[in-house]
């Protein structure tokens, strides 16, 4: 048993009343079997079901459970951020609380990290329980994202991973509001390696992620980390302007040579209006996209607010007189 290190496990929780108890039991069992010092941080992302009460109940009888209750639903990425910022471990494990990430893999991940890697992620060998469409889409998303941003994200890596303290501190320094976590991990760098594992089917409940969420996340990821879309549009616009210039010159000379065959002013007006407007709208789209992001960052609002924080504090009552 490792005496000198402290292990943190961070798991976001959003309406997981069916899974969270079993998840806590399994994870704490693995932790207490393998480590002397550990904490399990559950970040309640504004759940509307019983999840929070179930966690609090367990805090009364089992040690080392911490609950951070966010003041509303902020989304998974922010919940993870809150957990990472509050974690105190030398190694911090990130995982889902829906039992899809097997807790039994934690010791392997941590051992690998101790052997000298700052990030060890669990690499999915199969994506059980995901639709064909989702598999294809995510594969191409990672390919395109790698091209656009220059950061290579392994397409079999989920969020289930362990970080060294160095990496957690680095991630905590990133203040952006658009937090596509996998991009943030790639951005901070450090040595990383994967360990293969088989992702489980959901034990109960449904995934709270739909295609719309995924599209949002993908757009955030690419646009926050890449200025290539802007570059492409700029090149396109410059080419258009060149074309416009050439066509203007063409129309000008045509008019000089053969002015009687077209109605006065028609050619120049149509060409100018069409090209100018198309360029203008493209510019506007791009600029507004970026300005939108600049605005969000400039406001520099706190990423989240914690409504309540509690920690395991064994309660003595009449029922547990025995252990005195």
């Amino acid at each position, binding site marked *: 048993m490792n005496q000198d290190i402290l292990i943190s496990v961070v798991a976001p929780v959003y309406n997981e009343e069916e899974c969270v108890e079993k998840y806590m039991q399994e994870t704490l069992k693995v932790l207490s079997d393998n480590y002397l010092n550990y904490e399990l941080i559950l970040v309640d992302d504004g759940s509307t079901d019983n999840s929070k009460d179930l966690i609090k109940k367990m805090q009364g009888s089992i040690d080392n459970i911490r609950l951070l209750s966010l003041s509303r639903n902020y989304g998974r990425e922010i919940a993870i951020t809150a957990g990472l910022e509050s974690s*105190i471990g030398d190694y911090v494990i990130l995982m889902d609380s829906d039992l899809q990430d097997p807790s039994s893999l934690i010791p392997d991940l941590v051992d690998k990290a101790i052997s000298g890697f700052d990030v060890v992620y669990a690499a999915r060998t199969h994506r059980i329980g995901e639709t064909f469409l989702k598999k294809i889409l995510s594969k191409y998303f990672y390919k395109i994202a790698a091209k656009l941003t220059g950061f290579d994200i392994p397409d079999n890596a989920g969020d289930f991973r362990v970080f060294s303290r160095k990496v957690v501190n680095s991630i905590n320094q990133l203040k952006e509001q658009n937090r596509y976590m996998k991009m943030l991990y790639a951005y901070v760098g450090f040595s990383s390696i994967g360990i293969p594992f088989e992702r489980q089917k959901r034990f109960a409940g449904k995934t709270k992620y739909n295609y719309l969420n995924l599209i949002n996340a993908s757009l955030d990821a690419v646009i926050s980390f890449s200025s290539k879309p802007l570059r492409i549009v700029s090149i396109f616009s410059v080419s258009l302007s060149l074309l416009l210039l050439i066509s203007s010159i063409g129309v000008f000379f045509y008019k000089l040579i053969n002015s009687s065959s077209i109605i006065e002013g028609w050619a120049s007006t149509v060409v100018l209006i069409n090209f100018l407007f198309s360029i203008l709208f493209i510019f506007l789209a791009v600029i507004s996209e970026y300005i939108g992001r600049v605005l969000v960052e400039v406001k520099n609002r706190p990423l989240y607010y914690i409504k309540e924080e509690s920690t395991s504090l064994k309660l003595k009552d009449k029922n547990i007189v025995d252990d005195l």
Partner: protein
Amino acid sequence: MKAHEVAIIGAGFFGLRIALFFAKKGMDVIVLESENSPFLRASTINQARIHNGYHYPRSYSTAISSHNHYQRFCDEYSYAVNLNFQNVYAIAKKNSHTTSKQFESFCELIDIPLEKTPSDISNLFSSDLIESSYLVEEAVFDGEKLKDSLLNELNKYSNVEIIFNSKVRKIYVKDGLANLQVHDLQYKAEKVFNTTYAGINILLQDSGFEKLDLRLELTELAFVKLPKEIKKLGFTIMDGQFFSSIYYPTLNCHSLSHVRYTPHIEWNEKDYCIDPYNLADQSQKSKYLHMLNDAKRYIPILKSAKYLHSKYTIKAVPVRNETNDGRPIVLKEHINDRDLVVVSILGSKIDNIYDLEKYLNKY
């Protein structure tokens, strides 16, 4: 056995101060202590901080009363007071109940001096996590010396007797006198003061008196050797689930406590009343690594702090004060006839003694 005028249960700081108070009046006083020596529990196993008000930005009344008593305590026990280090209060950026602005205006309002730390101290803090830090005057006391000076003072009075290894099991009234049952002996007294801190309620329960509304916590105080660059400093992060590491003169090292990790077990005595000190004496699994790991995030140089050992004791918190962090004394009269008095006194902070003496005059 002859009847004493005053009997005090518990030879901690409060018990002995009350003994002194009545000794000065020439009354015949007996102090019954369950351990073999005074000052063994809450009086020394606690942060050695003498509060000067800074600690209570959410309870003005507590802050003001602390500040008013601070100088008086430091003057009276100058022999035991240690000012040989600089105390730093820092405000956390996130999840703190107070902000720099609030803290500054709070200190201004109750008129306690506050000075921004020079850069060599403020640079010790992680700028990501700490908003600002201040130098404040707040002394610590040496528990051993405090005990010695109080015992010296008591020795001047021949009308005070301290009896050790005498755990009072029960108080009952017989023939107009309070009887204190210790083993198979009965001590008799006219006025009884129960100053057993966390032990108050178990004695009240066994004696059939109404209990105080207390929440007890089994707490861990860790002791650490700080690296020499910061040995002359004490740190307190305000205000929430943070930590504090200040000088602890008795052991010539620093104490380390953490709001999140110091309490190990808690219970409300309304539901569950046992002798808590049995629990404190059982071995506990230390949470020092949790405390130190969190502290390192705020003050990176604490990486080279060395953990020594931990002490465990019971902390008693009056239930009505849990939200505003105030720490006034609790005084409860169980019997107050003209010739028979049984009172329980819970003194939370060491300087609360000056509040208490106002009340004692009427007995």
